[in-house]
């Protein structure tokens, strides 16, 4: 742990001032001199053969500079997938091509067919209306199980079938798991759907390509969570631009939640077209376009079975999941239902034997990839739902059943390939019982009853693997990239610092929290530290922000770089103080010779580094700037326990969330205010999934709810105040800050407790039900009550 400074303080966010006064600089706020606008003509059908695209009329329309079609990209690479899964039989996954603009076939509604570039956006739109597309509509495959039938139409003609991979984990456990099920005293089975969600960050995606002929340099401004990753993927795999000729800038980004990790066709298009046309090209997604082009999340259909012995100990677990990949493989799509899902199936419990089977399926729908939690919400939901169901079947208290099966010894090696370093699940459950006032439930139940409402209580635990990720491990698992993070700390002569990080902030408050870490280590005011991120030209190669990794991995890189700074600064101080550097102590920005009153201030040392008049030049280089790359030794394992109380209107089936409580263990905390906010936001999204959201396709592959008119986003009056607590802290043992990450917990931990609560309410009211699939809309709940 670095010396105390401002670490742990709820510092107000410095970035807020610009956001609150309208001075944020989001990608759409940027306009480059001479820019053109692109409008994409997109497929109106889910599956079809593209027999011809006639752009002649469009080319003659006012203001049109050029119309591009798939043929213009014949010599350009396709969008790459960054993760390769090997299936149960040792074969690599089936990996289809993903062209920038469709060629030959269109494979989902929204697949881009042509791109009109014009002087104004309206001109581009008007011209796109005149393009004649000859599409021979083909039968669409939408349902995953139907997609795997022998005679199903193929999404990709050149693949064997629609099965991307059939993954077994851990394959060697399979026989032992079968045997444990045979011997079980009780087996609980649950079939469920983890429905398709649309991430919906409030800022739609934007891309602006620019090309400087004098230096042969391309610049892409884009709404990305990881500009370096985009530079690498787009430069190396799609457009063939060397990294030193390509700059990617992600300025203020209005939320991501995973959907802005991936490399999208529009980014490649704008970069490519700007170079071709020698003019900047800008694309701003409309919300309707976002619904059919931003990657979706979740979309798993699962059967889970839990085996218990006669004493109600969990003895084995097996799951069978179909995971929708959509029409193409998005950047990290294969990792989500496998390594981000299977490895979490142990949850907080000491189940000794686990087998996970995942069949990933291509369908004629928008590609599916990581959405807040990515695989871990799916794992948590099925596990915590089946445990609740088991408790009900066995007539035992669901909390007691969980407690009985908690892992209590750490480190703990799970049967699904990971080792939890620390945790205290008893403590978070105790804390939950306290903050949720579970002992007062019966009283509240009676009050609800008196009002004619059904009340229910749902509790669940969760664990997640964050701090993504140890490169060595993920390399073995199929990642095609490393997942370290980087930081450069540049100290100026007058003592201020600039920290350049590969992490990216799109709401997480890095500009406030990171200075707390660095300033705390030195003992200076955080206002002396400036954070630079989001521009590949002035940050070291880093992997960006997702998987609750920025503090655990990016923060650790910052600590390492700052440690190097301090070590060098101590040597300079030792010279100035005529002492040995081993005797120098740094506290509150002052270097002191231990045991004496001889000292020199931080600012004098930094000045000496850059004005080396009295300086040990023979021992040390001038200057004070250090870079560190940090690659974690393990994942981090935040965990916690959540409780939800609902009221159900017996007349209408409408569910209201009456209380929501979250007790989390994130290890050490840098800024508790920001942590609270992260948990609140995650819970809001989790409640959205549980009660409101879900992308619905009809059998022809039309997205039926592709706008905010139809896709029910959670609103302020759908949610209550949340009680959140993170005072249970078991620090991570393998990163220098002892932090675990908090960005996804709320979204992972909240859906099961909501569903558990609604089932509880209905069962208490005498309804014979065991499960309702999300979203628990009034009509679904009402139907369940009728039935």
């Amino acid at each position, binding site marked *: 742990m670095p010396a105390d400074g401002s670490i742990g303080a709820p510092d107000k966010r410095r970035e807020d001032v610009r956001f609150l006064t309208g001075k944020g600089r989001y990608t759409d706020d940027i306009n480059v001199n001479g820019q053109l606008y692109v409008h994409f003509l997109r497929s109106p059908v889910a599956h079809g053969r593209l027999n011809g695209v006639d752009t002649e009329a469009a080319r003659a329309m006012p203001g049109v500079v050029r119309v591009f079609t798939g043929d213009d990209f014949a010599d350009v690479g396709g969008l790459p997938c960054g993760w390769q899964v090997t299936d149960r039989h040792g074969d690599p996954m089936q990996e289809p091509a993903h062209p920038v603009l469709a060629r030959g076939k269109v494979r989902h509604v929204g697949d881009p067919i042509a791109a009109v570039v014009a002087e104004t956006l309206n001109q581009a739109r008007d011209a796109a209306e005149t393009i004649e597309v000859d599409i021979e509509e083909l039968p669409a495959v939408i349902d995953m199980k139907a997609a795997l039938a022998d005679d199903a139409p193929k999404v990709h003609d050149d693949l064997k079938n629609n099965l991307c991979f059939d993954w077994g984990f851990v394959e060697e456990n399979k026989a032992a798991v079968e045997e444990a099920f045979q011997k079980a005293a009780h087996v609980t089975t649950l079939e469920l759907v983890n429905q398709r969600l649309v991430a919906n960050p409030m800022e739609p995606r934007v891309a602006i390509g620019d090309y400087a002929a004098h230096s042969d340099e391309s610049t892409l401004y884009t709404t990305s969570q990881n500009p370096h990753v985009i530079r690498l993927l787009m430069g190396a795999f799609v457009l063939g631009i060397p990294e030193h000729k390509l700059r990617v800038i992600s300025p203020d980004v209005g939320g991501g939640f995973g959907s802005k990790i991936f490399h999208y066709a529009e980014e490649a298009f704008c970069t490519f077209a700007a170079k071709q046309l020698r003019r900047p090209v800008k694309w701003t997604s409309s919300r309707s376009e976002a619904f059919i082009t931003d990657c979706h999340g979740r979309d798993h259909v699962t059967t889970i079975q839990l085996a218990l012995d006669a004493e109600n100990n969990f003895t084995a677990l097996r799951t069978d999941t179909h995971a929708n990949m959509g029409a193409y493989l998005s950047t990290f799509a294969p990792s989500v239902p496998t390594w981000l899902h299977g490895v979490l199936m142990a949850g907080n419990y000491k189940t000794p034997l686990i087998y996970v089977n995942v069949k990933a399926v291509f369908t004629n729908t928008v590609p599916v990839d990581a959405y807040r939690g990515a695989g871990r919400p799916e794992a948590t939901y099925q596990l915590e739902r089946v445990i609740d169901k088991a408790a009900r079947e066995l007539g035992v208290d669901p909390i007691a059943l969980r407690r009985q099966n908690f892992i209590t010894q750490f480190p703990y090696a799970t049967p699904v390939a990971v080792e939890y370093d620390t945790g205290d699940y008893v403590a978070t459950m105790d804390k939950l019982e306290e903050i949720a006032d579970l002992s007062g439930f019966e009283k509240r139940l009676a009050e609800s009853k008196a009002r004619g409402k059904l009340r229910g209580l749902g509790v669940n635990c969760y664990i997640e693997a964050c701090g993504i990720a140890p490169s060595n491990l993920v390399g073995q698992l199929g990642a095609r990239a490393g997942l370290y993070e980087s930081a450069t700390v540049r100290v100026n002569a007058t003592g201020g610092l600039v920290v350049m990080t590969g992490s990216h902030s799109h709401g997480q408050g890095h500009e406030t929290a990171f200075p707390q870490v660095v300033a705390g280590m030195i003992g200076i005011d955080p206002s002396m530290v400036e954070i630079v991120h989001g521009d590949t030209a002035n940050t070291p190669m880093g992997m960006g922000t997702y998987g609750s990794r920025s503090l655990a991995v990016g923060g650790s890189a910052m600590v390492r770089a700052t440690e190097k700074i301090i070590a060098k600064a101590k040597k300079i101080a030792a010279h100035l103080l005529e002492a040995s550097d081993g005797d120098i102590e740094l506290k509150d920005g002052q270097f002191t010779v231990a045991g004496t009153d001889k000292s020199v201030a931080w600012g004098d040392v930094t000045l000496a580094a850059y004005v080396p008049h009295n300086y040990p030049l023979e021992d040390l280089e001038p200057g004070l700037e250090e870079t560190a790359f940090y690659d974690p030794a393990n994942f981090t394992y935040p965990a916690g326990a959540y409780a939800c109380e609902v009221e159900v209107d017996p007349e209408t089936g409408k569910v209201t969330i009456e209380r929501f409580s979250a007790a989390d263990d994130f290890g050490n905390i840098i800024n508790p205010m920001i942590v609270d906010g992260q948990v609140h936001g995650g819970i809001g*999204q989790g409640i959205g999934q549980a009660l409101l959201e879900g992308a619905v396709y009809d059998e022809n592959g039309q997205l039926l709810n592709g706008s905010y008119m139809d896709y029910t986003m959670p609103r302020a009056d759908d949610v209550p105040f949340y009680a959140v607590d993170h005072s249970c802290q078991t620090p991570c043992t393998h990163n220098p800050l002892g932090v675990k990450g908090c960005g996804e917990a709320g979204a992972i931990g909240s859906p099961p407790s909501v569903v558990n609560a609604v089932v509880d309410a209905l069962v208490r009211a005498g309804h014979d039900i065991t499960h309702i699939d999300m979203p628990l809309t009034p009509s679904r709940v009402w139907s369940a009550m009728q039935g």
Partner: protein
Amino acid sequence: MTKVTMSVNGTERSGEVEGRTLLSAFLRDTLGLTGTHVGCDTGQCGACTVHVDGKSVKSCNMFALEADGASVTTIEGMANDDGSLGVIQQAFQDHHGLQCGFCTPGMVMAAAALLKENPKPSEAEVRAWLSGNLCRCTGYHNIVKAILAASGQDVSKEFAA
């Protein structure tokens, strides 16, 4: 193209627009006031909320021509004269009522309109008022808290869930 003139944050501004130009586009593209955000194309998200003649309006739901001669206030006009944050803005910062900041201008404008109409709203009234403004980051907790605080109500005690 037609000329429109309006008072924006107290200054007379004019520009040439097409009949179909939305007020949000006029503010952003013609006047460069990019604090007003566009988060949807169906009038649901509220990121584009501004005040037109004192009333809160979704600027994507109005043609620029309809605002000809009107007095418009945007997020850029909400700070105090000395540049410091206004009461609502300050409450948003104090209570961490924003994360990515994209919904924030609309939230602040909506909150200002609410407090003008109802200076001491209840929690339920705040939530109901905000139902036309989407935020994907905060789960609304700290937005509601910030608005209650801006109205001078005590939010020091953690709210029971």
